[in-house]
């Protein structure tokens, strides 16, 4: 672990250009769908359930098999194994029943895309309809249709607690302090219910996977994935093959935001490839499929009760979360857990009772999405805090400054809070948005308002989520940096290269990140999720570069008869501060050095190894959710919004957003700001526009025409970003992650600003023009 002293750095902390930018602006960057396989390539098409809940009676493939170009067809009988990250509750293809619209029931392998599509259309599936359940609150009531009768027999992670015989796949509890007693001491108590709908990640690149099953039994999977290593282990387990026989190659990803984490459709390509050994098979989701056939963000019903003294001190919180996990909750269960252990938001609350339920429904499968439950819970927390402040007659900024969590206070899960710049972030955004000053609206039919919301988020992952890195050199003294984390736009390759260049004393252009990530040749990385790469992979990169540096300095020291402490590497040369000698890295990193007088050749190829695993994370108690170090750390931040509501149309124009996040240390400040800008706009999009409209589990708006995301014309003209740096003691140079966090406070900040403008609260996202217009009409 590092101390909190500020280190002098040359590359770390500077905004070098992205290492992947040139490839990406010239069209040279290879995404998975860009790979060329020639006439060898076969195409897979998936037959999907049109029903939300049904038993599969029969599948007739005879006609399809006779169609020109069709090579083979797979059904659930080909994929009996279970798959899932934390709870193995699904098959690659449905076996006996379908649980959501879009559940895969068969796959056609054909010589062209058209032949595969025609073949898929010729497959006849007979279903017997089963009653469905489409609301998480209804699904937990007695007598609700049981979606997974075999829940009790599924493999499950040790920190999850499914309730067999119900639709509850995980129940996370916080029992902290005397909640009833604390409410008794409160002068003001508020209760409210908030809802967030399913939304979709909408990466511009849809999911694509190409698999080839070799005659040797080895499988290669080219996959647009955030999780090459997790896909290797999960697909191997589901298919009954050795993980070492599965090789996953992850090219650049055209946006992930969580939906390309874990495994969703990739097993289909592998199962299809098994039927046509030696031939690559490509499966690519259409935009329509992308909306509901990988992951969606889980819907949430949040019931909140909160109390405070008349001085404004929050004393007690009681929360119930009902997460709509959808048909399968293999990944969503852990979102439920993360939401539970963060359920106070970034506040100190002495007494807390939380019940966070992950619930099966017959809606699309929920999974990780940017924020991992935090945008959904902060939607409720940050609005109820605003209401509480108003009821107490306190300023909303001052109320947050009074109650926000500080270093040394105990978090909701019993951890002592580490150093955090949260109050700095709050003060900064208040200043940047000119809190307390009210500009007149730009037109008579418009109303103007300001709102603020704050946030926290910890990486959610098992404590054995590891990172590994290596450094190997070339004859010219340049080096290749091996990482297993993915570049999905956030800039992970760039910051990894910066860290290695910093330690090894070389300019950025001497570092090449070894890409694409390939599980056969790249070092291990658990997954590119949880905003954990800069921190976790960064620690491994720093360790690998430090290991190589030590070997180099030891070698030169031995040759020159000097101690390594007097040596340094500057601009690609080893120098001695004592003797003022120097030697280029190119002279020694592969072929070693000759001892004086050519007596002896010493050294050889330098290879640096590094790893990191947060071994210090502790369990949380099953009954109380308490533990001394249940998560690695929290990143905190704040956003403030100024907007106008057009009272004639209900339309909201976001004029300005001020955002500040405590990233510990910005390895590349411009990349941090780019993450903030992108997150703010994605958060705004979710707050104003986005909902997957479902009717009895059937998605009604699976296209860009019907599911609107923010365009250039909607995006705020001004996003004022600030980077706060309170060093994190387990992060490289003090860094912690920030990628997901940036979208967490945006939607509630907008809701709070709309309230400020028009005096109406909305408990359910999104705040569409229609919804606002109708509310204004109702009020009038």
């Amino acid at each position, binding site marked *: 672990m590092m101390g909190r002293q500020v280190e002098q750095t040359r590359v770390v902390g500077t905004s070098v250009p992205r290492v992947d930018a040139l490839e990406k602006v010239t069209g040279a960057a290879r995404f998975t*769908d860009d790979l060329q396989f020639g006439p060898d390539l076969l195409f897979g098409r998936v037959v999907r359930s049109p029903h939300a809940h049904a038993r599969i009676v029969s599948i007739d493939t005879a006609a399809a098999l006779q169609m020109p170009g069709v090579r083979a067809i797979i059904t659930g009988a080909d994929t009996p194994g279970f798959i899932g990250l934390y709870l193995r509750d699904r098959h690659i293809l449905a076996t006996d029943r379908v649980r959501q619209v879009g559940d895969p029931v068969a796959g056609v392998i054909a010589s062209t895309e058209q032949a595969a599509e025609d073949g898929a259309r010729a497959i006849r599936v007979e279903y017997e309809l089963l009653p469905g359940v489409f609301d998480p609150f209804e699904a937990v009531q007695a007598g609700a249709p049981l979606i997974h009768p075999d829940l009790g027999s599924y493999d499950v992670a040790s920190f999850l607690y499914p309730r067999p015989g119900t639709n509850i796949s995980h129940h996370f509890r916080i029992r902290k302090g005397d909640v009833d007693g604390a409410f008794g001491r409160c002068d003001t108590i508020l209760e409210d219910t908030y809802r967030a709908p399913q939304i979709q990640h909408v990466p511009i690149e849809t999911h694509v996977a190409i698999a080839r099953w070799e005659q040797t039994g080895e499988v290669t999977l080219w996959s647009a994935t955030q999780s090459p290593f997790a896909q290797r282990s999960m697909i191997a387990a589901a298919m009954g093959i050795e993980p070492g026989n599965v090789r996953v190659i992850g090219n650049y990803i055209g946006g992930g935001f969580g939906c390309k984490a874990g495994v969703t459709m990739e097993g289909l390509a592998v199962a299809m490839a098994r039927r046509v050994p030696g031939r690559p098979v490509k499966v690519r989701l259409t935009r329509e499929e992308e909306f509901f056939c990988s992951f969606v963000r889980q819907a949430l019903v949040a019931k909140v009760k909160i109390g405070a003294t008349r001085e404004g001190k929050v004393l007690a919180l009681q929360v119930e979360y009902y997460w709509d996990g959808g048909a399968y909750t293999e990944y969503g269960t852990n979102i439920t857990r993360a939401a539970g252990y963060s359920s106070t938001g970034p506040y100190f609350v002495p007494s807390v009772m939380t019940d966070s339920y992950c619930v099966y429904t017959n809606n699309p499968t929920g999974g990780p999405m940017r924020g991992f439950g935090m945008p959904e819970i902060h939607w409720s927390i940050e609005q109820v805090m605003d209401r509480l402040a108003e009821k107490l007659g306190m300023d909303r900024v001052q109320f947050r400054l009074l109650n926000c969590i500080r270093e040394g206070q105990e978090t909701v899960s019993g951890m002592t809070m580490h150093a955090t710049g949260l109050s700095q972030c709050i003060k900064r955004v208040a200043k940047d948005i000119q809190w307390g000053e009210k500009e007149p609206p730009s037109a008579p039919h418009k109303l103007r308002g300001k709102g603020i919301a704050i946030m926290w988020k910890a990486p959610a992952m098992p404590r054995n989520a590891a990172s590994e890195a290596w450094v190997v050199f070339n004859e010219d003294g340049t080096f290749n940096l091996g990482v297993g984390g993915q570049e999905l736009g956030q800039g992970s390759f760039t910051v990894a290269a910066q860290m290695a260049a910093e330690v090894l004393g070389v300019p950025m252009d001497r570092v090449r990140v070894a890409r694409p990530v390939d599980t056969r040749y790249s070092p291990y990385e658990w997954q590119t999720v949880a905003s954990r790469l800069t921190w976790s992979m960064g620690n491994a990169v720093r360790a690998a570069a430090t290991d190589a540096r030590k070997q180099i300095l030891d070698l030169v020291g031995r040759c020159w008869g000097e101690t390594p402490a007097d040596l340094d590497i500057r601009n690609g040369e080893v120098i001695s501060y004592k003797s003022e000698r120097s030697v280029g890295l190119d002279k020694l990193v592969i072929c070693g050095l000759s001892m004086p007088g050519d007596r002896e050749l010493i050294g050889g190829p330098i290879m640096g190894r590094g790893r990191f695993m947060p071994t210090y994370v502790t369990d949380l108690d099953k009954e109380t959710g308490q533990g001394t170090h249940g998560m690695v750390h929290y990143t905190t931040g704040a956003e403030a919004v100024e907007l106008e509501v057009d009272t004639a149309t209900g339309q909201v124009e976001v004029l300005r957003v001020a955002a500040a996040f405590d990233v510990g240390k910005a390895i590349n400040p411009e990349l941090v700001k780019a993450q903030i800008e992108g997150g703010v706009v994605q958060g705004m999009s979710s707050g104003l526009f986005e909902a997957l409209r479902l009717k009895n589990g059937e998605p009604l708006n699976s296209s860009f025409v019907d599911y609107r995301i923010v365009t250039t014309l909607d995006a705020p003209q001004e996003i004022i970003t600030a980077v706060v740096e309170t060093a994190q003691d387990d992060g490289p140079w003090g860094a912690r992650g920030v990628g997901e966090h940036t979208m967490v406070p945006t939607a509630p900040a907008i809701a709070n600003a709309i309230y400020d403008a028009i005096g109406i609260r909305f408990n359910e996202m999104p705040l569409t023009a229609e919804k606002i217009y109708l509310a204004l009409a109702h009020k009038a």
Partner: protein
Amino acid sequence: MATHSITLTVNGAKEQVDVASNWTLLQLLRDRLALTGTKNGCSAGECGACTVLLNGEPVNSCLVLAVEADGANVVTVEGLAHDGQLDPLQQAFIDEGAVQCGFCTPGMLLSARALLTRNPHPSEREIRQALVGNLCRCTGYARIVRAVQKAAG
């Protein structure tokens, strides 16, 4: 499906290819000419990732039949740089940090190129209007708009 022999100029090079009647220009570029810089995001003309210049005009290549491009001049992202020199827009996208995942970037660049060719000094509003058909999920657009402003000088 009937096939047609068509001739077109792609990034300055003349190509003669046989295409099926129902092939799109996007399929021709990606699957036949291996110009994979042009991306397929929705196949429905809604996301703009497949934008190319057809006789100088930006089009969603997924909505143009390949046979419609017979005799046409097509520019893709691979054709933006000349003689080893990046188009000023490409350089500005690098300098302003307008690239994240990079999947929308080729389409953005071509829509922006069409804009600057017909209007060398657009206002911010004009830039935002010209790029409204190109969806980006990563950047929040601010740096893209700034890059176009910078390239316009």
